[in-house]
């Protein structure tokens, strides 16, 4: 049973005009078996939350803590966090020229599992995972994300999710830029990952459409750098109808 606890998290980014606080006291707990959706308007700090947890060097943590099964995540390097069981599916996956997808996946699996996967079973495992996500095998020999379409990149993020099997997965706008078919394929991938293990999912999204495929247990409204309201799946329906206006107003008044 894994638990990701985010307690009063503050983070800022350095700009030309000095440090700018983006996260202003985030409190959230994701337990194994739960799917949490974080929804919020653009600029509310949702993506910053994802990157801050993963350890992106651009963001400085100025207060609070993040614990994975009681371990202080913020004291770990980026790769240690991943090996501890955190995974961030990125909104904009990075291109790494010269490194083949096959080599990358194997290196990542070796690092996360603590030993190189046996070649014979590994090839089968990767092929099966690619088939599940309707990814052509030819992608294995292409450079990581290089020249991939938006949809192809997202499928490969979920491919990594399925192979690395983290304890907690954070999906940052994995639905953005996907057509209807790709959205279905990607959502099914996330659901398979969820069903296969006792894992937690933190789904960050701007729109409610992915929630038709992935059913959240909890929905949180994010505004002004923190969670301003939490509820069940029905909260997403309310947001669909009324938008974020009510919450952005509240956040502005509170800050």
């Amino acid at each position, binding site marked *: 049973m894994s638990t990701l606890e985010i307690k009063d998290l503050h983070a800022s980014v350095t700009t030309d005009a000095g440090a700018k606080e983006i996260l202003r006291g985030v409190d959230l707990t994701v337990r194994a078996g739960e799917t949490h959706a974080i929804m919020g308007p653009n600029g509310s700090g949702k993506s910053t939350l994802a990157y801050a947890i*993963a*350890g992106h060097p651009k963001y400085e943590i100025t207060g609070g803590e993040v614990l994975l099964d009681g371990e202080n995540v913020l004291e770990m390097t980026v790769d240690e*966090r*991943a090996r501890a069981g955190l995974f961030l599916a990125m909104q904009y996956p*990075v291109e790494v*020229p010269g490194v083949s997808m096959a080599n990358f996946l194997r290196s990542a699996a070796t690092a996360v599992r603590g030993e190189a996967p046996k070649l014979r079973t590994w090839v089968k495992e990767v092929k099966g995972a690619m088939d599940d996500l309707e990814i052509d095998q030819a992608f294995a020999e292409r*450079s990581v994300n290089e020249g991939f379409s938006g949809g192809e990149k997202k499928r490969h993020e979920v491919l990594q999710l399925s192979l690395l099997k983290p304890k907690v997965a954070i999906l940052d706008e994995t639905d953005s830029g996907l057509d209807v078919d790709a959205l279905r394929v990607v959502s099914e991938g996330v659901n398979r990952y969820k069903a296969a293990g006792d894992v937690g999912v933190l789904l960050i999204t701007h729109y409610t459409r992915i929630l038709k495929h992935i059913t959240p247990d909890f929905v949180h409204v994010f505004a002004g750098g923190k969670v301003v309201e939490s509820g069940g799946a029905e909260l997403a329906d309310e947001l669909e109808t009324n938008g974020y206006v009510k919450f952005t107003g509240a956040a502005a008044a509170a800050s």
Partner: protein
Amino acid sequence: MSSSQTTGTQASAENVAVAAEGKYGQGGVPPSGAMERFLSYDVEAFEVPGGREENWRFTPMKRLRGLHDGTAAFDGTAVIDVAAGDGSADGVTVESVGRDDERIGKGGIPADRVAAQAWSAFREATVVTLDGTPEPVTITLNGPGTGATAVAHLQIRTTPHAEATVVVEGRGSGALADNIEFVVADGSKLTVVVTEEWADDAVHVSGQHIALGRDATIVATSVAFGGDLVRVSPTVNYTAPGGSAELFGLGFADAGQHLEQRLLVDHSTPNCSSNVLYKNALQGEEGVTDAHTVWIGDVLIRAAAEQTETFEFNRNLVLTAHARADSVPNLEIETGEIAGAGHASATGRFDDEQLFYLQSRGIPEDVARRLVVRGFFGEILARIPVAELRERLEAAVEAELAVTGV
């Protein structure tokens, strides 16, 4: 009036002929391109370059130890060792010959003052002749030692239909100006790897002159790791139709290092091909002169060179700050009757985002960096013909990465 004084609009094959008189330098008309390059065996035919000339503008002249301006004493000796030199190896003949040997100069003619200086000053040349299908030959080019300067001359030649592999390893200290001729006979194939594995103080300025006979092939790989300043200028001349040149390069410049590669592929006869792929990685350091690579890729397709097929590509990977990669591809075409011609250049940075991405998948930082560099150099290293050499160079790449501890 010598051909060096012609202007860029009068490009013709005659202009490449030896011009023994007249000087090309600050006072002359700068050539618009490589079509009218001035060539001479005589050092005095070249003006002393000041550093602003087109073919010297990237080179840190102060670090040339006087190889370019007549102040080098040439007080040292660069010993050339040939591993198969005891005469016992089948198909390998090693000779030490005088300047008057009729074979000397068949590879090409110097195109800059340092190459001409080396040509004017050498007393004996080493000629290695490869016949049939000999075992790979390793030739070591030894620097003259710390503080010393030297010239050297080496010619590697094949007999018709021979198939041979040669490794030329540059090692040691000091400053060396040399010319290396590759004379590839009709129907033969020469695979050559030239490595620059100099000590940190070394300066090496090398003119490589490649002459391809009818249906002859050269596959040349240049590997540059060591030295303070390394400037290698390979020129490919096709003496008859059907020649093929594949030129690969791998360079790794550390803080303070200057690695310069200046290629000219001169398509002057029909039905020849060339393929150029050079890759450099750079890593600098704060407070030290920038790591610097320079790649000049000139390809000429003269009017007579119909059905030429050529492609050249330079890629540079900048691993850290304090590094600079210059890349100048140049293609000049005088005939429309070609099979294909293209060139490309790309310089990219191994940036924080890539590192973050790889690390976010659990891959430790040092492994991530190695992944990227190994992937980058992989297609060059895969072409190194001798397994032990390939493994040694792979290890050298890893060692380079360990230098900065990143």
